[in-house]
Structure formats: structure tokens, C-alpha cells
């Protein structure tokens, strides 16, 4: 099954989803498609007109362009996904780099689609990691 991961470029989530026998939908694959097939100078920083139109499907014109840009990549993946795993409060998602509004929007889009999803904590110690990995394993094995 195709599993959307949030943060969409997380190494830990990508690895775990693959390990437990599913296909992770990540931003890396979407960006690679642009690198290999579309002549854009430096994706995902630079977009095409089509991307802007795609982004408008998920966020209105009054929303900051960064949010729409991110959603033009992540939105189609959420539509394609059969399930989703959301990691809460990763340290690198804080501040302007992480764009909390985009993350909120992603959570909303997943909820609106109604696909099976799970929210886990970002591991900050051994006990938390045990729970996070255990929860993800149970969730992914239940999808089969």
C-alpha cells in the first residue's frame, strides 16, 4: 500500500515504512521527477506554472506562496495515498523553515480524505522511540 509520510522527507519514517513492506510516498520522489523530466533549475525552490495551478487546488490565492508551493508537491501525494503516518513535533519542523501552516494544512487534507492514519511522537529518548516504532509497526502490519 502507498503510505504518505509527514514530514514528507523524513529518513526515519521512509525507512520504517519500507522495512514493514509498504511504499512510502515522499517528497524526494516528487522532486526527482522534476529533476529527471522537467527542466527546472533547482526544484523544489523553482516551480512551473502547472505547479502553481496544482497548489491553488489545495490552498487559496490569499495563502502565502510558500504554502501553495509545498502543497503543489504534497497535495497530489495525499490524494494518491492509501494511508498516512504523521510524526508530531519533529525538531526540524519548528520555525519558518518548517512552515507550520503547511503542516497544519497537510494534517487537515489527510483528515478530510478519511484514509487510515496514525499520529506518533518524534522520538526524544529510548522509551519514546520504542513506543513510536511499536505503534508504526502495528499500524503498518494492520494495513495488509
Amino acid at each position, binding site marked *: 500500500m502507498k503510505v504518505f509520510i509527514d*514530514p514528507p*522527507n*523524513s*529518513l*526515519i519514517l*521512509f*525507512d*520504517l515504512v*519500507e*522495512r514493514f513492506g509498504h511504499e512510502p510516498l*515522499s*517528497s*524526494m*520522489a516528487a*522532486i*526527482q521527477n522534476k*529533476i*529527471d523530466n522537467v527542466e527546472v533549475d*533547482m*526544484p523544489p525552490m523553482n516551480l512551473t506554472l502547472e505547479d502553481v495551478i496544482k497548489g491553488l487546488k489545495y490552498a487559496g490565492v490569499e495563502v502565502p506562496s510558500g504554502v501553495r508551493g509545498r502543497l503543489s508537491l504534497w497535495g497530489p501525494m495525499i490524494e494518491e495515498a492509501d494511508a498516512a503516518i504523521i510524526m508530531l513535533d*519533529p*525538531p*526540524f519542523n519548528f520555525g519558518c*523553515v518548517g512552515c507550520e501552516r503547511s503542516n497544519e494544512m497537510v494534517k487537515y487534507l489527510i483528515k478530510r480524505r478519511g484514509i487510515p492514519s496514525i499520529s506518533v*511522537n*518524534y*522520538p*526524544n*529518548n*529510548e*522509551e*519514546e*522511540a*520504542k*513506543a*513510536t*516504532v*511499536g*505503534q508504526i*509497526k502495528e499500524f503498518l502490519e494492520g494495513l495488509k
Partner: protein
Amino acid sequence: MSEERETRIFMISPESMITPDQLVRTIHAMGKEVTVKETCYGCLVEGSRDLVKDILAEVRKKHPYEIFSKVRAYPAGDPRRCRAQHGTRPGYAQLEAEWQALPWVQNGLMCADKGEKYKLPEEKKQFSAEKFKKICEAKE
């Protein structure tokens, strides 16, 4: 056989005794037609998708808990990303943060395979408005 390019990051958990050099030699010894680039955190492997997947399966078989992997969008040594050519390197701060958490995840995987029970984290509750009001109105 899929000829589509796949570039993969192989990241070694900081708790592991494997060095990037050992990992690169192991992959070279598999004799597959792929490019392997040694990095500070492990290595980058680039080649056709099926070959890279075979390598991943073999590496996982040999080191089930110590090596983590994800695909990378840009090819290895791409001037837009490569350190040698002063490329911008966005995403490395995130990789570093996740690298620090890998020993815990490694331990979590071992416990999950043994079927050990885990304690579910407590759900975060909303901070009560009353308490917040008290803090705001508190005099020093």
C-alpha cells in the same frame, strides 16, 4: 528491469561500529553496476532502481538494525547540491537531527522484533484558561 535512476542515502546509526569505508567496501564487493560515494554519514548509492533495491535488501540482511536508508532526489555529485562544488545543502540540518535519533530507533526496532511491550505516550492536554489567567495575573 527498471532503468530508472535511483539514488539512495545509506546512513549508519551513530551507535554502530561500522564505518562508512566498511559499508562502501561491502557494497562494492557485491559486484553490482552502481556508483557508490562515501560520505561522512555512510554512503550514496546510485544506479538503476532494481539494482539499488537489491543492494538495500542485502545491506538490510547483513545489518538489520544499524543502517537506515531513504531515496535522494538529486543525483550523487550534482553541482547544485555537492559540497565539493559549493552547492547549497538544504536538508542537512534535518539529516543531522534524525541521525541523532537513530540509536533510539535502532533499539526500538530490536524491541519491536522481540515483541516487547511499550508504554503509550500520554496524550497532550489543552492548557486550561484558568491556569493561564493565574500565571498572567501573578505578581512578582
